[in-house]
């Protein structure tokens, strides 16, 4: 009896190849550096970079649900923007109710008002996600064409319902007292709210990574992305897993909606579909189904949008399209393509 255990043989990937695989990670600092060179003024650059990171984080929050849902179930939800809008409207309504809390100088009260608003928004959009999945997405699994059409129809109906519930006018709201104003760092003024947005986004990304890498449910999700049929045949109900992921994604869209709404301080019934353009670009850049790719893509888009908005305002949105084209030329499936065993 020998005490050697059988080990799987893992082939070492050559260092050069590893570097190529890790290359997308370097894109963000490279872009930031290029922005520094193009702008020249360090304090302006710092302000813009923080703004870009905040924007990127918010887009990531909205896009992450979409990309995981796609990876897991091959479903793309064109109605995702509706959750963003609903989240923003619910959040604003709650914040308007809690006007006493948000206007008070106490930081604790401010933040708890924000927390309540975010929780309410996430709860409602999560529930809405449940209804959306059951009624709209479930009957058309596996048929891409119908999925696109039906989720688009869901978007139309949801948008109209927002009109019915909240009326056609836009809503204005100022941020809670503690999140107004900015911190001055050297010459650069950094809005406090942006820092909060970066913090929330970063926490969410790390939490998501943790869940996906270290928990059983994360393992199942990743396995489902890799090969859903196999997971099913091992006795897990992938449909239910998918429902949970879909609801989480919708709730995250709601969170993103509240944050984006507070960032802009104005919300309209079609804000969701406007942001969806950026979200789609991010998801495409990152590679459909990849959370890491989505994160990097969101940061790239956020930074680039802010730099170009400063340098050449007219081409801001075109620049993100150009970025998408450039990334797709380099990697036709996005930065981190998700391999499907299908």
């Amino acid at each position, binding site marked *: 009896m020998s005490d050697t255990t059988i080990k799987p043989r893992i082939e070492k990937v050559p260092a050069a190849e590893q570097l190529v695989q890790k290359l997308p990670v370097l894109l963000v600092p490279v872009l930031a550096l290029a922005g520094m060179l193009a702008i020249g003024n360090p304090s302006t650059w710092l302000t813009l970079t923080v703004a870009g990171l905040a924007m990127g984080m918010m887009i990531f929050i909205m896009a992450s649900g979409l990309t995981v849902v*796609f990876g897991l179930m091959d479903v*793309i939800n*064109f109605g995702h923007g509706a959750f963003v809008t609903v989240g923003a409207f619910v959040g604003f309504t709650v914040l308007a109710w809690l006007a006493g809390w948000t206007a008070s100088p106490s930081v604790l009260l401010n933040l708890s008002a924000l927390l309540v608003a975010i929780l309410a928004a996430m709860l409602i959009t999560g529930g809405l996600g449940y209804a959306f999945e059951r009624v*709209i997405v479930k*009957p*058309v699994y596996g048929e*891409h*064409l*119908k*999925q*696109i*059409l*039906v989720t*688009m*129809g*869901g978007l*139309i*109906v949801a948008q*109209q*319902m927002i*009109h*019915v519930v909240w009326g*056609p006018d836009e809503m204005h709201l100022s941020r809670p007292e503690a999140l107004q104003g900015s911190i001055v760092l050297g010459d650069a003024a950094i809005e406090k709210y942006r820092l909060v947005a970066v913090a929330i986004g970063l926490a969410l990304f790390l939490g998501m990574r943790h869940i996906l890498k270290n928990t059983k449910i994360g393992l199942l999700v990743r396995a489902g992305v890799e090969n859903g049929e196999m997971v099913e045949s091992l006795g897990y109900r992938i449909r239910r897993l998918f429902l949970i992921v879909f609801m989480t994604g919708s709730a995250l869209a709601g969170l993103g909606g509240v944050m984006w709404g507070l960032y802009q301080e104005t919300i309209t019934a079609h804000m969701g*579909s*406007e942001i*969806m*353009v950026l979200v*789609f*670009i991010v*998801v*495409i850049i990152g590679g*459909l189904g990849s959370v890491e790719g989505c994160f990097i893509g969101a940061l790239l888009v956020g930074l680039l949008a802010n730099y170009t908005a400063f340098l050449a305002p*007219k081409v801001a*949105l*075109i620049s*993100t*399209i150009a970025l*998408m*084209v450039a990334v*797709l030329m380099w990697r*036709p*499936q996005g930065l981190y393509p998700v391999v499907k065993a299908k």
Partner: protein
Amino acid sequence: MLIKLLSGDTPRSGLLAVLLLVILISLAFAPFLFPGTRSLETAAKICIFIVLVASYDLLLGYAGIVSFAHTMFFGIGAYGTALALSTTGPTYGSMIWGTAAGAIVAAVFALAIGLFSLRVKAIFFAMVTLAVASAFAVLVSQLSWLTGGEDGLNYSIPREFKPAFKLVDEKIFDVRINGKLLLYYLVFFASLILFLTMLRIVNSPFGRTLKAVRDNAFRAEAIGYRVVWYRTTATVLSAVMAALAGSLLAIWLRYTGPATTLSMEIMIDILLMVVIGGMGTLYGAVIGATIFILAQTYLQNLMGVAAQATSALPLVSTLVAPERWLLWLGVLFILSVYFFPSGIVGRLRAGRT
């Protein structure tokens, strides 16, 4: 002769044939049957949208590709004509070269987008076109020195098409034969020709291969058809047709702006028209566009009445308010995707057997 004109694609349903005939006759004699500016505007809009929706059906119904850039091509055509007319003056020459330029630019754009993103999945194409189209819409509203920005362009058209121009002095059937009427018939016959051309395209061997690619791309590839080539060609063809429809709209309205050509609302309208009318058959586009535009113009009045009647019930009256008509069409859209994906035309044809 008639069957040849329809490229052998007969309606294959008595009721459908009657409906189509009614639409054709009403459009052909619209100025005489329904006098008044508003009904003429509606009739011209129906003509133009039949072409636009049919060209979208070429893509969605026959090739199985979802594109959200169709209004972009529509807009390129409209802006091509509008720019030509506003820069080089109201002549026939500028009308023609503007239309041609618009169509060519649309074709080049479609080729680029197609080659770039049609190799991958349908979803991917839908997302890329959505992004590109909205970027294009923003770009057009930003470049105000060229496109007039949000205000759009106003320009004049050749004198013979203006309401002030009189062909004959007497009225015929109580209708003045003026430039507006001539313009309407230009739009009508151009739309008719474009529609019959598309009917020819989808019933050609090319159209049949396209359907094969839609139903089973893998198999079509295995038999030896180059799937990417067919899909890209379909994209380009439909883009050119959309651009021509855009040119017609630009000439008819004598105004081109982002709201009338490029907005996402129009894209959604087109989607609704195709699906409700029936995907995969060009007659669906005729039925869909006609019903939708009639509903858009006249259903809202009806809903206004309904809203007044139910004003005592708070929620119901907001649900049937005239502004909410899109809500009901959205519901109808979802139901039709589920329960009768072949739309009204498919229903009618199935009912026959």
